[in-house]
């Protein structure tokens, strides 16, 4: 999975979440959309929902199980959950590592 493919997955899932939560700004999210933290689009349960949904999307799309909120991710100085593009990069990296 390339970073571009991962970003498409993230944005598609954000749009679906936006429709579900009645948050139109998520439907037009792009690579620079702030996901979590100050002035961000998601609260903590919104982020948990996004992560859970994305992990399933990845399993269905490429057949590997990833844990997006692993200890490495949680201890990074720059959180991969801060922006959509950072999350996509993190996701693509995990998929690469998980594939034999």
């Amino acid at each position, binding site marked *: 999975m390339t970073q571009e493919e991962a970003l498409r997955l993230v944005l598609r899932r954000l749009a679906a979440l936006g429709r579900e939560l009645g948050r139109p700004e998520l439907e037009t999210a792009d690579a620079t959309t702030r996901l979590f933290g100050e002035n961000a689009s998601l609260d903590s*349960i919104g982020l948990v929902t996004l992560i*859970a*949904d994305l992990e399933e999307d990845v399993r269905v799309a490429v057949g590997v199980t990833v844990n997006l909120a692993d200890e490495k991710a949680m201890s990074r100085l720059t959180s991969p959950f801060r922006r959509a593009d950072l999350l996509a990069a993190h996701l693509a990296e995990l998929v690469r590592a998980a594939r034999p």
Partner: protein
Amino acid sequence: MPVAVVTGSSRGLGLAVVRRLLADGWTVHGLARGEQPAAPGFTPHVVDVTDPAAVQAAASAITAAGRVDLLVNNAGAASMNALLLTPVAVAERLMRVNYLGSFHCLQAFGKAMVRQRAGRIVNVTTVAVPLSLEGEAAYVASKAAVDALTRVAARELASSGVIVSAVGFGPVDTALTRGVPRAQLDRINARIGLSASPSPEAAADFLLAHARSAASGHVEYLGQVA
């Protein structure tokens, strides 16, 4: 057909819950350390709930096949020791099995339920927590952690449609309590208004009635707990 996951399913209360669910037409996955025979509607998984990787692997296998409607976090350990004489290893083991075991399963299956936007998690606790039973400090502390986990998880997951609650028992008539002196069991049962320890089947019925209707965050006890 609804799907349940029951931990500690090889004996005692867990086994009774599995049998009741199967009789009610559920598909059931049992997580236990030992081998369990497969049966129609029942899939056994050899899992030690203190091992997060093993729990996650089982959760991935189960949820890949479909939804999970109910998780019963029943796997547990007990030990009665005078507080000042309790070996540290015993206190650590109780915390690992009772608290972290529930924590690992709640995380692994909770994610699947968040994806479904629905599900129910029932944690098994004990009347020893509200009664502050002497001689059970390490056990009570580990189950108090389960109670606290239940209440916080209920708040965190409420908006995702996932209901988290707990049900607590005094001594249930299982292998775990048969080594406890009868007089001690009688004293505990008397404190919660019971004439005898309930059978695993009676406790399972109570648990499943709770699971059908309990509000999120509710901790319900079998017996009278002030």
